[in-house]
C-alpha cells in the first residue's frame, strides 16, 4: 500500500523535479531511520545526561545522597561532655571517639536503641601501640607479648587519659616531625624556646598547659624588619640578607607572620 502511494507521489515528483523513484524511497527510509534514532535517543538517554559533561548529571546527587555512618568528631560532645573534655586534654585528644567505639550515626539518631561498642579486651590497643619498626620513631609502642601478657590494657591505662611512663626529655621526643624539618631549615639555629614560651608543666600534661606562639608581628620583626624599623638589635639581624626583610607594618596587614610563612620551614614560602 505504501508503495502504491509512493508510486503516485513519485510520479508527481518525477514529473515536477525528475527525481527517480529509488531516490525517493531511500530518502523516506533515511527519514524514518532518523526519526527512529531521535526517538530512541530521547527514550534511552537520561534527561540529565550531558548537563555538566559526558555523564548523567543526576549521578552527582545519587553520590551525595548516600547515608552517613560516622557522625564526626564533635557530635559525641553534646551528651558525653565529661569524657570528651577529659580526652580533649589528654594525649588521645586527636583520636576521634569513633576510632575505638565504632561508627556512631545510628547511635546519635536513636541513643536508646543503638549502643556503641566499648572494647575492653586486649585486642584493639595493639593495633596502634604494638611495636612495629615501620612506625615513626617516637610513637609510643610496646611488645604486646611481653607487656603484662593476658592483662586487659584498661586495668592500668585509662584510654581517655593515657599517661606516658616517663616525662619526655626534650621537645623532639613528641614533636619529631617539626624537629626534623627545623633541623634542615635556615631557622635550625633557633631554639624552640626563642619563639615558644613553654611552661614546665607542658611536659607532664601537655594539652592543659599549651606553649605560646608569637602573637605580635614585631616579634618576627626583631630579625625581619627593615633596618630602620629595628628597635631592638637581636644578634642575627645584621647577617640576614636584604630580601628577607620587609616593612612589618604594611607587609602583613591584619595577619600574623606565621599565618602565611611556616617558621619551621621558612623557605617553603607563602
Amino acid at each position, binding site marked *: 500500500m505504501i508503495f502504491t502511494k509512493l508510486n503516485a507521489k513519485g510520479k508527481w515528483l518525477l514529473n515536477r523535479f525528475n527525481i527517480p523513484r529509488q531516490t525517493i524511497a531511500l530518502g523516506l527510509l533515511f527519514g524514518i531511520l532518523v526519526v527512529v534514532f531521535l526517538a530512541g535517543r530521547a527514550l534511552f538517554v537520561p534527561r540529565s545526561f550531558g548537563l555538566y559533561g559526558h555523564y548523567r548529571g543526576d*549521578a552527582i546527587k545519587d553520590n551525595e545522597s*548516600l547515608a552517613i555512618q*560516622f557522625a*564526626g568528631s564533635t557530635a559525641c560532645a553534646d551528651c558525653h561532655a565529661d569524657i570528651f573534655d577529659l580526652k580533649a586534654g589528654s594525649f588521645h585528644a586527636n583520636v576521634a571517639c569513633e*576510632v575505638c567505639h565504632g561508627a556512631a550515626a545510628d547511635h546519635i539518631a536513636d541513643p536508646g536503641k543503638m549502643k556503641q561498642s566499648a572494647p575492653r579486651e586486649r585486642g584493639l590497643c595493639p593495633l*596502634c601501640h604494638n611495636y612495629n*619498626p615501620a612506625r615513626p620513631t617516637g610513637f609510643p609502642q610496646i611488645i604486646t607479648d611481653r607487656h603484662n601478657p593476658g592483662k586487659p590494657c584498661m586495668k592500668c591505662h585509662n584510654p581517655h587519659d593515657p599517661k606516658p611512663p616517663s616525662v619526655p626529655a626534650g621537645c623532639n621526643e613528641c614533636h619529631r616531625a617539626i624537629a626534623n624539618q627545623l633541623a634542615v631549615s635556615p631557622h635550625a639555629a633557633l631554639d624552640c624556646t626563642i619563639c615558644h614560651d613553654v611552661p614546665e608543666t607542658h611536659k607532664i600534661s601537655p594539652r592543659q598547659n599549651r606553649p605560646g606562639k608569637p602573637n605580635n608581628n614585631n616579634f618576627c620583626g626583631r630579625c625581619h624588619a627593615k633596618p630602620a624599623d629595628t628597635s631592638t638589635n637581636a644578634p642575627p639581624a645584621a647577617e640576614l640578607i636584604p630580601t628577607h626583610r620587609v616593612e612589618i607594618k604594611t607587609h602583613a596587614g591584619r595577619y600574623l607572620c606565621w599565618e602565611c610563612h611556616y617558621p619551621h620551614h621558612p623557605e*617553603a614560602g607563602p
Partner: protein
Amino acid sequence: MKNKISSKNLLSRRQFLDFCRKAVPTGLLLVTAGAGRAGGPGHSVADPASAGGEGQGTLRPFGMAIDIRKCIGCGRCVNACKIENNVPREPLYFRTWVERYILPAEGEPKVDSPNGGLDGFPEIAESNSVLKSFFVPKLCNHCANPPCVQVCPVGATFQSPDGVVLVDQKYCVGCRYCIQACPYGARYLHPEKLTADKCTFCYHRIKKDLLPACVEVCPTQARVFGEIGSHSSPLWRFIRANATTILKAELNTRPNVFYAGASSEVR
C-alpha cells in the same frame, strides 16, 4: 528528452561545486563553535590552575595530603572506609588500603599489605637486613586527567565539577575497562552490585561539610583534606609547609592526592 529536462531542473556541476565550496567552511565553523562552547567549562573544571581565574560556576577541586612520617599503619582508615561505604569485608576489595614498604640494606624494596592493613601488620621476617620501613596509605588519586574516565565506554565514571572522580552506579555496565586503566589500582568490581567501585572522598560527607571517614578516624592526623588552591584550607596550608610529591608523575594523570615524606621508592 529526459536528459534535457534534468539538466534544466537539477543543479549544474559548477553550481554544485560552488555550493560545496561555501558549505564546507560554514559547517566547519559551526561545528568548532559548538564544540568550543561544550568543551569550555569542562576544561576549566579539570584544570585547577584556570579554575580560579575563570570564576563563575567553577569550583575548587578537593584534594588530600598524606603525611607518611605520621602514619602508624593501624588500618583504622581502611576499617572506617569499609563501614562508611559498604565495601565488602572480605579481602581484596578496598577503596583505601595501607601498604608497608620494607627497604632492605641491599636489593629491591618489598611492599606488603595483608588484608589492606585492616588487621595490622605481621612482624618483618628478616629484620636484621632492613634499612628502613614505613607505611603508605593508598587511595584513588582523583586525577585531574583521569585515565579511567577516558576509557569508560558509557560515561558512567566522570569527574564532578569539584574535581572528584565518581562512579554512576546506575549507569555502569561492569565492563572493567576503568579497573584496567587505573595506574594506581584504586578500583575494584563490587561483587554484589557488579559495578565498578572506588574512593569518592566520601562525597556524601564532604558535601555536608564533614571530613571523609578515613580522615575523621586517623588517630595521628596523617591524612589532611581540603580544597586545592584555597589559602584557608588545611590541605593547602599543609602543602605550603611540606615538600609533597605525587605518585607516578610521569604518567601525566595530575593526581589530587599528595604525599609528604615519600621517598623515591614509593609509587
